[in-house]
């Protein structure tokens, strides 16, 4: 990673004005730090992308296949035939500009091509030339331009500078969804053999090992044993979660970031403690060990391929329904695509019912998959959990709505209800930055690669800025979220823009507050930091 300028300098270095020449005449800039590393040829070949080849983004020649124009034309034609959304989005933008300053990348870079309208025009201009009469006849006058190799480079830069957060689509009077356009352009680029390592490597690992991080079954079990050791240290309770066992009511699937990296692991410990406490009849799976879906960032077909494992495994294990962990894009896929991709569900699966409260999750009748915050909120509402929120008293927390649970699902109140029950101090960030208008962390859609840290910090600036406001005004020192990419991406972002704020998942806070049957008095939180309000020692109270 290149050395980063100080926070105050980063945005000060942003160009104040747009380029003098029009956007069709400006060329993309390939300085180090502005682009992601290319995907490995053998990985793309293995995933069936025929035109995979060796290339480097900062080389002049990308060694595209000889018939690259024909490949792209076919690819775009195919996408237009398959997606009404693309046709409508290509034809009916009026360039009103309402989307312009809604994009976190535009706010953080002031690069005009980061305005969603212009990002889409990068494709639209080519579409007009090849697929509309006006474009064919009038060319540039009709906003059309002839495809050339520089446009491919421009697409590579700018469609990997969109996190598919869909904030712009909320404000667009026609609901034009840049995420849809971004996925399709990334798919077109893959057809030319152009992909990024961070995404395609994860896809490949997920396909082979069951998870993005390539954790193999025995290591996974080992990692979770270490986490169980930590739980034992903190609570005195030994948990030995079932793995790949048949005949349990529920399969639990969460993103691999949750059992692999700090601070996700604390959230994972939280799940284990909760399930143990309520006696949930569940199993983990090493095969379906990934909730997330990096395929969904680049291709509908690849997304479907990775997603297929969930039902396949639920069927093999004979489970009735699937409980899903805290993740963002995972829930875009589960909520909006999974039933379509790989449904109808296996015959043995049933509409989810909470075995603890009897609540029927009718809203998940087709997918048979429940979000853990829906599940836990229901437990709390029915008084099934003994909670001691005082344990989280040194925390003044705010809530980051992750893009996909917010704008692809409407999961807004469930996590807040839980948060308010496990933390005594909760402060909302300012309006226009939360709930459905929430800002992305700047690293979503597979852009949490280290090599583009400059871009990520700029893209994360609007989120950090809102956090800074409540940090300064209300002393907020904690930010909860329900997205594994957030848990990976926000800590460096927050350290950079708003030092002094900790990022965590929701179930870490739940488990901190959860009073478990037979536990020792808690003196530490899940991070094994001393509690400001440790539990009273029963021995002390007996003496008194």
């Amino acid at each position: 990673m290149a050395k980063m300028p100080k926070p105050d300098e980063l945005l000060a270095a942003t160009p104040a004005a747009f380029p003098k020449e029009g956007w069709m005449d400006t060329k993309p800039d390939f300085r180090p730090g502005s682009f992601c590393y290319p995907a490995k040829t053998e990985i793309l070949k293995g995933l069936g992308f025929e035109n995979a080849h060796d290339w480097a983004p900062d080389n002049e020649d990308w060694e595209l296949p000889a018939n690259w124009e024909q490949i792209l034309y076919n690819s775009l034609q195919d996408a237009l035939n398959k997606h009404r959304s693309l046709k409508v989005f290509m034809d009916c933008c009026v360039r009103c500009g309402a989307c312009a300053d809604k994009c976190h990348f535009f706010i953080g870079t002031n690069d005009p091509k980061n305005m969603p309208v212009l990002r889409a025009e990068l494709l639209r201009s080519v579409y007009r030339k090849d697929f509309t009469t006006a474009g064919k006849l009038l060319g540039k006058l009709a906003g059309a331009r002839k495809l050339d190799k520089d446009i491919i480079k421009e697409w590579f830069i700018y469609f990997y500078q969109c996190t598919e957060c869909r904030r712009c689509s909320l404000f667009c009077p026609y609901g034009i969804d840049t995420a849809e356009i971004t996925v399709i352009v990334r798919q077109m680029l893959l057809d030319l053999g152009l992909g990024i390592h961070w995404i395609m490597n994860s896809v490949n690992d997920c396909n082979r090992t069951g998870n993005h991080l390539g954790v193999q079954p025995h290591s996974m079990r080992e990692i979770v044993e270490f986490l169980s050791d930590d739980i034992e240290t903190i609570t005195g309770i030994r948990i030995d979660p079932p793995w790949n066992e048949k005949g349990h009511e529920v399969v639990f699937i969460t993103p691999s970031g949750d059992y692999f990296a700090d601070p996700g692991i604390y959230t994972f410990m939280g799940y284990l403690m909760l399930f143990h406490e309520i006696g949930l009849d569940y199993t983990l799976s090493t095969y379906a060990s990934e909730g997330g879906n990096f395929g969904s960032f680049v291709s509908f077909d690849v997304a479907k391929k990775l997603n297929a494992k969930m039902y396949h495994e639920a069927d093999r294990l004979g489970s009735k329904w699937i409980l899903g962990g805290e993740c963002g894009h995972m829930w875009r896929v589960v909520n909006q695509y999974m039933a379509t991709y790989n449904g109808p569900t296996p015959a043995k699966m049933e509409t989810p019912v909470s075995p603890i409260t009897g609540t029927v999750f009718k809203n998940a009748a087709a997918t048979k998959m429940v979000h853990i915050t829906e599940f836990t909120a229901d437990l709390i509402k029915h008084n099934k959990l003994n909670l001691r929120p005082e344990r989280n008293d040194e925390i003044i927390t705010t809530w980051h709505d992750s893009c996909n649970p917010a704008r692809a699902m409407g999961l807004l109140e469930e996590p807040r209800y839980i948060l308010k029950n496990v933390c005594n101090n909760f402060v909302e960030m300012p309006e226009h930055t939360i709930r459905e208008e929430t800002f992305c962390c700047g690293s979503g859609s597979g852009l949490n690669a280290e090599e583009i840290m400059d871009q990520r910090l700029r893209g994360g600036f609007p989120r950090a800025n809102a956090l800074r406001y409540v940090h300064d005004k209300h002393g907020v020192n904690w930010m909860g979220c329900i997205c594994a990419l957030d848990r990976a991406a926000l800590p460096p972002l927050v350290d950079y823009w708003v030092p002094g704020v900790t990022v965590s998942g929701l179930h870490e806070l739940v488990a901190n507050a959860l009073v478990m049957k037979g536990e020792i008095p808690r003196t530490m939180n899940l991070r094994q930091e001393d509690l400001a309000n440790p539990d009273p020692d029963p021995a002390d109270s007996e003496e008194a």
Partner: protein
Amino acid sequence: MTIAFAATLLILIVGWAGSALGLQYLLGVILPLVAGAVFIIGFIWKIICWAKSPVPFAIPTVAGQQRSLDWIKPNRLECPWTTPAVVGRMILEVFAFRSLFRNTRAELTTIDGAPRVTYFSNKWLWVFALLFHYSMLVIIIRHARFFLDPVPCCIAVIEFVDGVFQMGAPRFYLTDAFILAGLGFLLLRRVCSVRLRYISLPADWFALFLLIAIAGSGICMRYVSKVDINLAKDVIMGMATFSPVDPSGLGAMFFIHVTLVSALLIYFPFSKLMHMGGVFMSPTRNMKCNTREERHVNPWNKPAHFHTYAEYEDDYREAMIEAGLPVDKMPEAKTEA
């Protein structure tokens, strides 16, 4: 911008010159008929072209609380899960520009030497967009009086309300002022805002100039260079009933106006103005947000090719057994040596 202005001017001059050169019949009867046909056929063709592609996935943009647990209040209109609720969302979108109402303005500032961004509610675009579109609608409805005989009373009512601030004759219509105000604002922001200037294509300017010219010529015809209204009605009625009446007695302004309107009708189906149809077909707005409850079917769904559990177990069987993980298939016992 210059090109778009020149193009509008050219159409205007064609209308004026045509009427001066005795082409009244061509401009006043044939052109509008052709334009009307192009508009209707083009509009339908475009909708069919869109509709031919399927909607493979349910991708509504959710803008409010989902329906999950009974005790959490869902947002029926921002996260609609029934068809009537989707219709409600669409009505709000089409008639009240719901999404545009959300508009905010982000302003980058420096506070205590550190960069900050602040958001302000920004409803001007919404106000003037509504003003323009509704004025346009009322004006089109008012024009129906030229196509219908007798004039239905609902049109008379609209005319009465629109002309409630009567100041002498002819009656002054509010919408005439509003449409110019609306278009003026839309033009002005495109000129003044750096961002909008940067993203604007000739087509964006052309649509505005053309609409301004149409409104302007219409207003002129009404208040300044008056035309024979009765003859105009005869001509238009004749056209609408395919029994043309000679229009040569009408003033030049009539032909300018009609030529501009014809240009708009011909241009419409091939331009961004098709957002009029597109707004109804946007899958992020017109779909139900009940995607976990009801399966949406993709007509081109292909069979899934994925790494199955059996293949996975084949890859890792020994390691799994060693780690104490259950397996489906025990390794074949090594045949005794």
